[in-house]
């Protein structure tokens, strides 16, 4: 295995020299981060600055245009199966079926990750204990969001990637989410989340995507190259 990273700590999730291109457009470049066990990374930046793109990059949904993502110093591309097994990605869409009940939906996603325990504690954790039997088509936007987030509690994963998790959540649910994140971090889990709302996470690293925006000249040069 080639030496890929200088002295990584075991369990560090790192990105070095990351660049992302959507279509022809270079969104960000030269982005580095280190996320240690128990760490949290908050992505901030205006619309279109690449917060979602970076999260999708971290999940392995889109390939990096340049740079490398590594887990404990090993390129994640060497074993994508292992990388997928250790992450939860909650994107903009809630991945719910109108005809399945909230309980069935959550149980499906938990079982697909190998969790065998009952999903009731996860539902209760996000205030959905009474909605377990309700088909998802009757859930409100906030309840659908809670149900998507309940997947975090229903199956363990080392890395949580959350794209604007506070969208449509009321203050109670937002507090429940923050509590879940705090507990996850206390157990050595890592969180990356993007947000526009001010969010209180103890000693989280803030990463402003606007700092990595390419200059117009740079974008043009990369296009010609």
């Amino acid at each position, binding site marked *: 295995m080639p030496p890929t990273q200088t002295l990584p700590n075991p369990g560090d999730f790192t990105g070095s020299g990351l660049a992302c291109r959507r279509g022809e457009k270079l969104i960000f470049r030269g982005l580095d981060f280190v996320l240690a066990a128990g760490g949290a990374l908050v992505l901030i930046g205006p619309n279109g600055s690449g917060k979602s793109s970076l999260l999708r990059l971290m999940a392995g*949904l889109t390939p990096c245009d340049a740079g490398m993502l590594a887990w404990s110093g090993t390129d994640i591309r060497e074993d994508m199966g292992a990388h997928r097994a250790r992450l939860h990605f909650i994107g903009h869409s809630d991945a719910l079926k109108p005809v399945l009940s909230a309980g069935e939906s959550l149980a499906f996603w938990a*079982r697909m990750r190998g969790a065998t325990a009952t999903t009731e504690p996860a539902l209760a954790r996000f205030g959905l204990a009474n909605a377990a039997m309700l088909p998802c088509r009757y859930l409100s936007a906030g309840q659908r969001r809670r149900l998507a987030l309940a997947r975090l509690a229903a199956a363990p994963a080392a890395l949580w990637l959350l794209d604007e998790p506070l969208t449509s959540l009321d203050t109670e649910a937002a507090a429940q989410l923050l509590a879940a994140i705090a507990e996850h971090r206390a157990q050595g889990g890592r969180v990356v989340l993007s947000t526009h709302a001010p969010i209180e996470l103890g000693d989280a690293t803030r990463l402003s995507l606007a700092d990595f925006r390419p200059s117009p000249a740079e974008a043009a040069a990369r296009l010609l190259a």
Partner: protein
Amino acid sequence: MSAFLTLVARDLRLAFRQGGDAAMVIAFFVLTVVLFPFGVGPEPELLQRIAAGIVWVTALLAALLSLERLFQADYEDGSLEALALLPLPLEAQVLAKCLAHWLTTGLPLIIVAPLLALLLHLDPAGYPPLIAGMALGTPILSLIGAIGAALSLGARRGGVLLSLLVLPLYIPVLIFGVAAIEAEIQGFGARPDLLLLAALLVLALGLVPFAAAAALRLALE
């Protein structure tokens, strides 16, 4: 229960709850076959001559009807993205979804086909190769269809594109499926054609998961 079976069970549950798809495929199959006696006339000799072809062509079209939903619904509500990030490889998930699709559309087609053949006065010798051919052929329809469904994801008028992509690839199945019945009726035996269908099925089982999974990953990028 393994993740593979969990996914099959979930797709079956969705199919039963939503109901429409499987019933529509069968209704389309029956109605279209019934149209032929009206169109070409009710003479038993003529119908008997073209029965195998009618049943197979109509089965192909009926299978095509339900393909568009194979990945489309999951793509639209974000489930596909979440599925692609599960530990179970996307290739295995494609097989699971094809299995569920076959159980809800291919299997009912196999059950209804002999009844429709009866309506068209198919020679009695033709029934065993019809059923055997459909049993080998309909899984191929689901598998090849999965490639088309994955490739046409996100395209406008995906349904039309899907038909244009998939129908040419269905031709070998049609040829060997009909040839098996004709050969048996004429006393040559259906074995070679059925073996060729089996070979196609093995080929599709081996290649389709990789092709469809690659197309799905592209759609998700």
